[in-house]
């Protein structure tokens, strides 16, 4: 409220100087009332594209998820994605062999 009064007194001075403070006052009342009844949508801050940001659609994993996470061949639910890891006798994943 104090803030509003300061603005009001400032705007009175501004009016005497011929500056339009309508928008300022409406802004203050908007802030004071607390609800965001916007006439224009809030603009999203634009951040610069980072060096490591991957544009949408390029980040496709080589091993695709099965539909519903169920392997169609073996009917395994929640199993490893992609081809069967044990097909070469070891546990293969993206060309790497995992020891366990």
């Amino acid at each position, binding site marked *: 409220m104090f803030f509003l009064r300061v603005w009001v007194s400032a705007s009175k001075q501004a009016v005497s100087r011929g500056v339009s403070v309508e928008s300022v006052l409406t802004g203050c009342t908007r802030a004071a009332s607390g609800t965001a009844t916007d006439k224009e949508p809030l603009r999203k801050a634009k951040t610069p594209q980072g060096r490591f940001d991957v544009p949408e659609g390029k980040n496709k994993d*080589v*091993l695709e998820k099965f539909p519903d996470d169920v392997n169609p061949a*073996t*009917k*395994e*639910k*929640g*199993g*490893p*994605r*992609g*081809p*069967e*890891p*044990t*097909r*070469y*006798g*070891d*546990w*293969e*994943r*993206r*060309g*790497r*062999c*995992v*020891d*366990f």
Partner: protein
Amino acid sequence: MASVRAASRLLSRRTISHVKAISTQYPVVDHEFDAVVVGAGGAGLRAAFGLSEAGFNTACVTKLFPTRSHTVAAQGGINAALGNMEDDDWRWHFYDTVKGSDWLGDQDAIHYMTEQAPAAVVELENFGMPFSRTEDGKIYQRAFGGQSLKYGKGGQAHRCCCVADRTGHSLLHTLYGRSLRYDTSYFVEYFALDLLMEDGQCKGVIALCMEDGSIHRFRAQNTVIATGGYGRTYFSCTSAHTSTGDGNAMVTRAGLPCQDLEFVQFHPTGIYGAGCLITEGCRGEGGILINSEGERFMERYAPNAKDLASRDVVSRSMTIEIREGRGVGPEKDHVYLQLHHLPPQQLATRLPGISETAMIFAGVDVTKEPIPVLPTVHYNMGGIPTNYKGQVIDYTDGKDTVVPGLYACGEAACASVHGANRLGANSLLDLVVFGRACALTIANEHKPGEKLSPLKPSAGEESVANLDKLRFANGSLRTSEIRLNMQKTMQNHAAVFRTGSVLKEGCDKMDDIYQTMEQIKTFDRGIVWNTDLVESLELQNLMLNAVQTINSAEQRKESRGAHAREDFRDRVDEFDYSKPLQGQEKKPFDQHWRKHTLSYVDPKTGKVTLKYRPVIDTSLDEQDCAHVPPAIRSY
């Protein structure tokens, strides 16, 4: 309170005379618990919360945050004879494991592990571990190497239960989450220095808090060691930089033996530098190994199978090529795995993801350049000898004697379920079963809140003196240089290719390198988060493991499981099992090699003493599960 006052007095004395003093005094904090667990990987967490669940006031001392332990890298599965895919019996799993160990595994421990396996997996599943499922909702089991039905006669068994492709990660997170339900006290980023031993009994652990450099003595009636393996003694290994065999070294410094350290598992194609393993499928799809002359050298070693020969043949061939000077690279210490002669479409469909793997870990474009590879360590079968209950044992006067107050589980222990060779998917099982076994044994034999036996006030003095010496070490060789020397020596002399002269040369070199530890130089004199100091302590631990490994390998004059020698190619048992037993005379104990190696080291000189201990050939209950008599191991 007295110790805090004393510490403050010491601190004030330090500030007065710090200019002249060479060794500084450290604040020492004493703790009292019912049980202390060193290490928070799969086995350590299972033991810690098993003990907390049983009501013991437990401390878990770990140098890494629990979910960062190396268990997280074990992406495969756990074996258990649940019988979800076909009829299965744990006795068939028992047979497979005994055979896989080349009859060096203790059959009572293997009986215990395989019998408890279904219950252990179901327990994990009840803790919330999201195993993959069949259509009926049962745990999905897949086939994995070395598992058969009906004692090897019924074809391939499906026993491996997994969680997508991150079983180890999931296991660790499940166990850690579960352990938070109980009031285990975690001491994270505390480096355990030594065991507090008095009159042959273990009374606790002394540890360095890395965060502020204070020394903590954990007094406990029961100490469980679960510190993992020691892959970092070799130049090329898949293990984390933190796999430094701290538990084995602590036990060695306490004057107790380590068992079967010469049995180290190698994989033929590990990426040079990174240590990640390249799947055998690369060779299965047509990839070839070439040396510096561009020759497909496997044609000479295995004319029929060529690159698809068994792992040990491929590893040995690669090592022989490197030894004979036909290695590639600036130091001629590895060979190439060539895949660019295969059509790129085929590579992408059959081995999806390999181009990214090769680019990330080897920095090569797999469609244009070959991948640098060499035989790589991935598991240590040996460790601290225990019985099937998880109690650490020593072998005196011809029998096993339990060391009171000390237990071990996981890769650090040697129960021995893996014997001379470990089967895949048995390692994660080993962690949970024996972690639980340690907790159960302690709960059976002790009560929470038991009075602690008295401990000398000067206990742990030597560890602090050693720490102080290392912190102000000012010799001529940096820690990294000594470590690299040790790793290269072990890779050249105690790797896959083992023969008398090579091992003997390696033993002498390791002896010299051990002596160079006196000339170690550290740079960081601080007390807060001194990684130079911790790496030097880890190097001391690695050294003890390395000398025991190479000396045990040099003495064992036979080939068994993962220990294969060119000059002694056969297994030497008490009978010749390739012929009928009738009419054969049993060889005396000191003339055959079906026995465990127990190695002791004098930490000051680095001299290794070896003793031998017989293999336990009887199962826990001969009526329920007959032991498997030794035979020739062929698949």
